[in-house]
């Protein structure tokens, strides 16, 4: 095939790629632009530009509280999910655990089971424990939801690592924890950090479990946005959406930078 020539197939492929990109990006672009609108209602294209909706965002306690709750929620839940998920992946991939496949499948359930079911189940369990409407309840819920992503990411990183490296470390005098810390962990660190960032985004973005488990006092950004959308809404919602988008973008860039940095170091 001629890689340089503009064959009809090449043109079609290019056009399709652009179309998909536009389809994916257009709504985002519209939201970002509207967030800088000077109009008092959602209007596109906006009549003028201003930062008034960002000012509005920061001066509305409901939004600032929601942002604070989201941060208080995503930090512990992503760290917990990463610690537990990494430990579980390590045990399931490296250990000789009977029924490892079944355990792995169970850990993956939150991805497979509809969010509504998980949310309702958590709500039911929490009722007896008084965890509904608490930050602890939300942290546990988000940890459960992020866990399968961490387990899957770290497990696949472990599978491509040579298990003999740990055996070698062991024969060279390294006890198991030292071998893990000095040999295995540095090698799977990109995957671990990736899953930490992924868990953070998942938590920030999560709606269904949060809807069930949160309360008026403990209400993360996603729930606040949801209730805002149900009533009359103004471009504040676009501003907060842009903040969310910016957060996800930052995390993505951090992840890419991590990978690139690592690639350079090993090159």
């Amino acid at each position, binding site marked *: 095939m001629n890689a340089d020539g503009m064959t009809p197939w090449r043109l079609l492929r290019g056009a399709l790629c652009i179309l998909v990109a536009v389809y994916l990006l257009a709504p985002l672009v519209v939201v970002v632009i509207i967030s800088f609108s000077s109009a008092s209602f959602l209007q596109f294209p906006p009549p003028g530009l201003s930062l008034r909706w960002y000012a509005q965002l920061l001066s509305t306690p409901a939004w600032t509280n929601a942002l604070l709750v989201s941060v208080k929620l995503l930090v512990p839940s992503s760290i917990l999910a990463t610690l537990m998920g990494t430990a579980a992946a390590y045990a399931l991939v490296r250990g000789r655990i009977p029924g490892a496949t079944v355990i792995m499948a169970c850990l993956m359930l939150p991805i497979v089971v509809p969010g509504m079911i998980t949310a309702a189940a958590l709500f039911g369990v929490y009722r007896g424990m008084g965890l509904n409407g608490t930050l602890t309840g939300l942290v546990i819920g988000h940890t459960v939801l992020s866990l399968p992503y961490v387990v899957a990411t770290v497990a696949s990183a472990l599978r491509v690592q*040579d298990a*003999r*490296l740990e*055996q*070698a*470390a*062991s*024969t*060279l*005098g*390294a*006890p198991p924890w*030292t*071998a893990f810390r*000095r*040999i295995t962990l*540095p*090698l799977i660190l990109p995957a671990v950090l990736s899953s930490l960032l992924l868990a953070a985004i998942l938590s920030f973005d999560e709606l269904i479990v949060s809807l069930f488990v949160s309360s008026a006092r403990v209400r993360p950004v996603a729930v606040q946005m949801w209730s805002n959308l149900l009533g009359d809404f103004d471009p504040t919602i676009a501003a907060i959406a842009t903040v969310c988008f910016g957060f996800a973008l930052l995390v993505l860039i951090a992840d890419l930078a991590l990978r690139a940095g690592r690639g350079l170091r*090993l090159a």
Partner: protein
Amino acid sequence: MTNVLELSGVQKRYDAVVAVDALDLSLRSGEFLTLLGPSGSGKTTTLMMVAGLQQPDAGTITLNGASVAKLPPYRRDIGMVFQHYALFPHMTVRRNVAFPLEMRGVSKTEALRLVDEALQLVGLPDHGDRLPKQLSGGQQQRVALARAMVYRPALLLMDEPLGALDRKLREQLQLEIKRVHQERGISVLYVTHDQEEALTMSDRIAVFNQGRIEQIGSPEELYDRPATRFVAGFIGDTNFLSGKVLAVSDGRCEIETPAGRLQARATQGLLVGASASVAVRPERVVPAASAALRGTITDVIFLGTSRKYVVRLKDGTECVVLRPANEAALGARGSEVELGWAPAHATAFRDG
């Protein structure tokens, strides 16, 4: 000489399969002992049990006079070289070699000195700052060797360390490992399926077959006086001629074969009247006037230092004869020859 390592009655099974069966083995201080056998014969399993990476189901393993049954690998005073190097990819060569010293709490200055010395010994003094993937396979294995002996372990274990390298590099590294072994006086337990490698490097060889040791001895013993038919066939090239035992006495025997009546060394279990095979090395077969064997040369292959003759005996079996190239030719293709050997150079084994 004391024994560094002793295995007694060691057994290992995987489900129904017995990988290693009632194994007794001892390794003398400073000795280079090779476990040689086909794949699945239990040699690597044996090595893994010595390393502590696998647990025996029965028997005891003693290292430096003390049982290591309860000791995890990191508490056994061993070094191990793996077939695929197993260097830590995120550490430089120097940090790889320093790793075992660090684990033993050796001071930094002392560690640096020992690492440099070890890298010098394996011929890589200027490669300390490289990463493993910047080295060739042969260089990586040298680093692995340096790493496994920099802390002077009581015993160095090597699991087919040259298996992933090409022939030329393999031969070069064989000699280097042997040199390092001699310079350091280190005890080595070496695993390979390559009989030439075993002959080149070892003080003694234990030939494994189906989880058992068939024979253990010096390369010369195994080659010249194989104890079993398996050893005779596994090490070096051998002609086998089968027949019936006519007489056994005084370590010698006489075997009647369709090709003629042969004399050989007797091994255990030969019974008069039972069937047996006579094994003889191609280079031990000589032209002889009063010979028992007659045949026709069907092929002559020039090998540089020697010539290989394929002789079809009168019963149809083929016998390979190897003669030095500077000796008079045995004959051309198609010519009739008479062959024989000194009885001490052939060995008879019971069949079945």
